[in-house]
């Protein structure tokens, strides 16, 4: 679990970067911290307890079977990253931007992607349960062949995106805009689209 200590910078409520008294944004050596995290993401099999908010990462390729746990990547940008075969557990990716990224065969539990934007991103053949996608914006994405059991897509805008062959049992789409979304071979009848169904 990442540290829940607050940044020592006056008025800043962000959580500290691991091993520091300041958050990433108020650290004097930001680029060094960012590249250190990038290196860990690319080389380590267990990435845990990181808190880095508002950083940008490009072309990340975690090793197959790597596990991200108890970490906070809020407001980060990920471009051209391949998160295939990654396990994500109890980690926060809220208000992030994922552009041209791939999540293939991932195993995500208790992850948070709320408020994030997904552009030309593929999430495929994955188990993504108990995961928070509330308020996401997804356009031209492929979210097919996934198990989204008990995940929450409410208040999202999902456009021109495939959600075919997905398990949607107890998945919430309450007040979501689903325009040009194909649910073929999925079970939307077991998902929730209104408050009364929950």
């Amino acid at each position: 679990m990442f540290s829940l200590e607050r940044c020592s910078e006056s008025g800043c409520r962000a959580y500290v970067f691991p091993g520091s008294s300041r958050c990433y944004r108020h650290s004097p050596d930001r680029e060094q911290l960012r590249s250190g995290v990038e290196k860990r993401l690319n080389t380590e099999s267990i990435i845990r307890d990181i808190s880095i908010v508002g950083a940008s990462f490009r072309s990340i390729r975690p090793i197959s079977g790597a596990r991200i746990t108890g970490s906070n990547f809020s407001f980060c940008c990920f471009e051209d990253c391949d998160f295939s075969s990654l396990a994500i557990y109890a980690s926060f990716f809220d208000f992030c931007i994922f552009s041209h990224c791939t999540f293939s065969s991932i195993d995500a539990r208790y992850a948070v992607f709320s408020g994030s934007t997904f552009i030309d991103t593929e999430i495929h053949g994955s188990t993504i349960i108990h995961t928070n996608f509330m308020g996401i914006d997804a356009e031209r994405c492929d979210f097919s062949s996934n198990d989204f059991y008990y995940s929450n897509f409410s208040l999202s805008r999902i456009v021109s995106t495939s959600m075919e062959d997905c398990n949607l049992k107890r998945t919430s789409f309450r007040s979501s805009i689903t325009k040009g979304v194909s649910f073929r071979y999925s079970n939307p009848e077991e998902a929730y689209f209104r408050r009364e169904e929950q």
Partner: protein
Amino acid sequence: MRIIPHFSAEGLSNVYLVSDYQNHGIIIDPANVDSILLEMIESVCGRLDAVLITHKHQAHTAGLGTMMKIYSPRVYAYEDEICGYSTERVRDGSVFSVGDLRIEVIHVPGHSMDSVVYRIGGAIFTGDTLSSGSIGSTHSFVERALLIRGIESRLMTLDGNTLIYPGHGPLSKIGIERMLNQDLLQFESENSAGRSNLR
């Protein structure tokens, strides 16, 4: 602090194991005790010092008896007795410690009259009071209004980065719920419509 969520098939609820770095362990809402949860306790802290109950419903307490037989932890709850075990009663504003973990109690009635939220550092354990995108079910409009008032005044005023660990469903943050919790947004819009009708 370490926080490890565990999904329980009993009532589809979340059980949380919280521990400090001296291996003091707390279980929040022991919905169901299975071998995975026991292995988690043994590997993370090897002992259990306390059980915190957010409210008295079966989906959040069914495993308490098993926990008591194995570990004999102290039980903290708003009620003085849970599943036949006497508790250390908590009230709004109560503060107590388990190892290095300082726990604050926030009483938010509505879903049930004994519903409390436990705050440990920058994390809150909300039980059925607040989940991602929704609030707890209630039996009447009065209880719903009471619940929403409590959430608005006691929880939504916390820092936006505060992590939410609910009794059911995915994790969240206060900042996310302020923006996207539909039950709260709906109540707000109904209220503002009501106010403009009165003018």
